[in-house]
């Protein structure tokens, strides 16, 4: 981050200094927030009514064994010291081992996260590509049916339980109409036709030229991606509409019209370009929200991502995995917010 900001500020000493202080401030905020995230998960881990020592040695262990295990787990030390150790470990990505899979939690997260990422990225893509034009049209033709549609999409999007909509989608498009494949990422038949490299199935199959597997994977991802895309679309189109209304009321729009520019140019080149600055933040936020929405979506579609990993671990009282997953999602959330902040500063010359 630091080098990118340096380049941006280059040349002007004052601007550079401003940028450096801003970068340091960003860094401090990021550090305290991440530390806070770790503190919250540490605290949650301590209030669990499960004795972690008993989980290791069993409840029939003699006291000597119990005490040794307690010492080895570091539970005999003061709470502050335990916290420092926890922070140190978390900083290196060490969240302990998962009881359920016996792998280190971090390696589990690394294998499941790409699946979540694939889904959320596709969802955001759908939401952005459809949502922005829809929002622009709604703002331009205020009160028309398209405006009402955006309002309705938004209302339903805020009110409908995502897991229920997913189930109903499965019922309709998979069970009744047979348009798409059902739960899972890939049919078993195809799952050995490629070697997982990035763990993003669409990318892996495409790069290895396994077109059959690719189409199968696409058919599997279509429904959950459209579902997440819908939620993203509902949010993005509503925000686009409100930003565009703001821009269209500005004087430069009148000036552009007076100048004789075509309406198309005024709307899509001038107004939208200005509305695009706050939209970046909205898209980043909706991306972050999809990562959250994926917990329920992944359960419905048996999608082997991070969300399903967390819920599976939850149901098996696997606290290391739950807290590790929570922390990773929290960190991604914070980073996305940070990225959107930085993009905002880069795109809007007034904040430089």
């Amino acid at each position, binding site marked *: 981050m630091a080098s990118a900001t340096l380049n941006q500020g280059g040349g002007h000493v004052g601007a550079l200094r401003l940028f450096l202080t801003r970068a340091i401030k960003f860094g401090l*905020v990021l550090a*305290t*927030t991440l530390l*806070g*995230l770790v*503190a*919250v*998960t540490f605290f*949650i*881990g301590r*209030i*669990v*009514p499960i004795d972690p020592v008993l989980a290791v040695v069993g409840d029939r262990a003699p006291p000597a064994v119990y005490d040794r295990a307690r010492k080895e787990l570091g539970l005999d030390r003061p709470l502050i010291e335990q916290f420092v150790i926890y922070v140190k470990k978390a900083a290196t990505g060490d969240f302990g081992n998962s009881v359920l899979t016996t792998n280190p939690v971090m390696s589990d997260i690394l294998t499941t996260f790409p699946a979540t990422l694939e889904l959320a990225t596709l969802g955001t893509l759908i939401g952005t590509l459809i949502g922005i034009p829809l929002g622009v049209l709604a703002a331009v033709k205020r009160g028309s049916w398209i405006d009402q549609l955006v309002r309705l999409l938004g*209302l*339903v999007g*805020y*009110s*409908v*339980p*995502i*897991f*229920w909509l997913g*189930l*109903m989608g*499965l*019922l309709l498009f998979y*069970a009744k109409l047979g348009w798409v494949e059902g739960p899972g990422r890939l049919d078993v038949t195809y799952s050995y036709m490629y070697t997982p490299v990035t763990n993003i199935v669409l990318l892996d199959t495409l790069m290895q030229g396994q077109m059959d597997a690719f189409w199968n994977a696409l058919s599997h991802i279509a429904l959950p991606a459209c579902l997440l895309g819908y939620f993203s679309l509902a949010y993005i189109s509503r925000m686009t509409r*409100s930003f565009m*209304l703001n821009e269209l009321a500005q004087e430069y729009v009148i000036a552009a019209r007076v100048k004789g520019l075509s309406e198309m140019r005024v709307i899509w080149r001038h107004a939208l370009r200005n509305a695009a600055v706050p939209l970046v933040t909205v898209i980043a936020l909706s991306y*972050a*929200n999809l*990562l*959250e929405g994926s*917990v*329920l979506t992944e*359960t*419905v579609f048996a999608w082997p991502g991070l969300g399903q990993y*967390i*819920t599976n671990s*939850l*149901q098996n*009282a696997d*606290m290391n995995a*739950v*807290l590790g*997953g*929570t922390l990773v*999602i*929290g960190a991604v*959330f*914070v980073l996305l*917010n940070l990225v959107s902040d930085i993009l905002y500063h880069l795109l809007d010359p007034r904040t430089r």
Partner: protein
Amino acid sequence: MAGAPPLSPPAGTRAWLLSPEPASRWQARLGRFYLGWRAFSKNPLAVLGLGIVLLLVLVAIFANLIAPYSPIVGGDLRTERLLPPSAAHLFGTDDLARDIFSRVVYGSRTTLWVVMLVAIIATPIGLLMGTVAGYLGGWVDTVLMRITDIFLAFPRLILALAFVAALGPGIDNAIIAIAITSWPPYARIARAETLMIRNSDFIAAVKLQGASTPRIILGHVVPLCLSSLIVRVTLDMAGIILTAAGLGFLGLGAQPPMPEWGAMVATGRNYLIDQWWVAAMPGAAIFVVSLGFNLLGDGLRDVLDPKAAR
């Protein structure tokens, strides 16, 4: 507050309500309320939302009169399992031969209970954090807002999941977890409002009269923050319902046999393809109720906070 006798208004109730010179605080408040209601009732969608919410409350209160069957004890397992919707069973029956309509009706109690408790727990926390931070400023503000930011940094459902995992599944723990994850936005709003109020003349006047800081915050700042907070909480109700239903769907909210809509959808998942009604009906109930709260919240916002309306 003594209050003027409302029984004999000079020229009809309306004139009394709209009087530009109210004789008492009470009359002024009623008058404002009436004006707000007039604006609110012009918005048909908002009235629809209010209707849905009132219906939810009524159904929850009179659940035992409305529901034709027991929500917990099922019928004959040999003949009454998974029946499709019919006149006898409006929404059909589930895998334990229980009437789904009755369970949805009783489920409204669970939903209302969750929403009320979360609002009662989370609103005062957010209000206090925000007003204290905003009014005192300085390092208190910094510390409180950093804490708020940390909680905001977690996605809500995931944080609630982690808390429920620690506390153990159950409706009460789900309520606590949702409340813990709900207050930060309220604190932000209360703080923003407080920052606007803090430097106004009437606060300076109260200060000169020698009012203590807690008195100023509780007696003068908090009431002024309430209206925008009420709107936000109402708008949040839908989110709270959806989060609670999501926890229930994952098996972490209300435990069986308690009728809870999210958990009922989860049961229906196993019978989705052939017995769609088991999942569809309770899910539709969640949808309608959160839609109602959203419409109501939108309407309230337009009345109470005309700036935000567009």
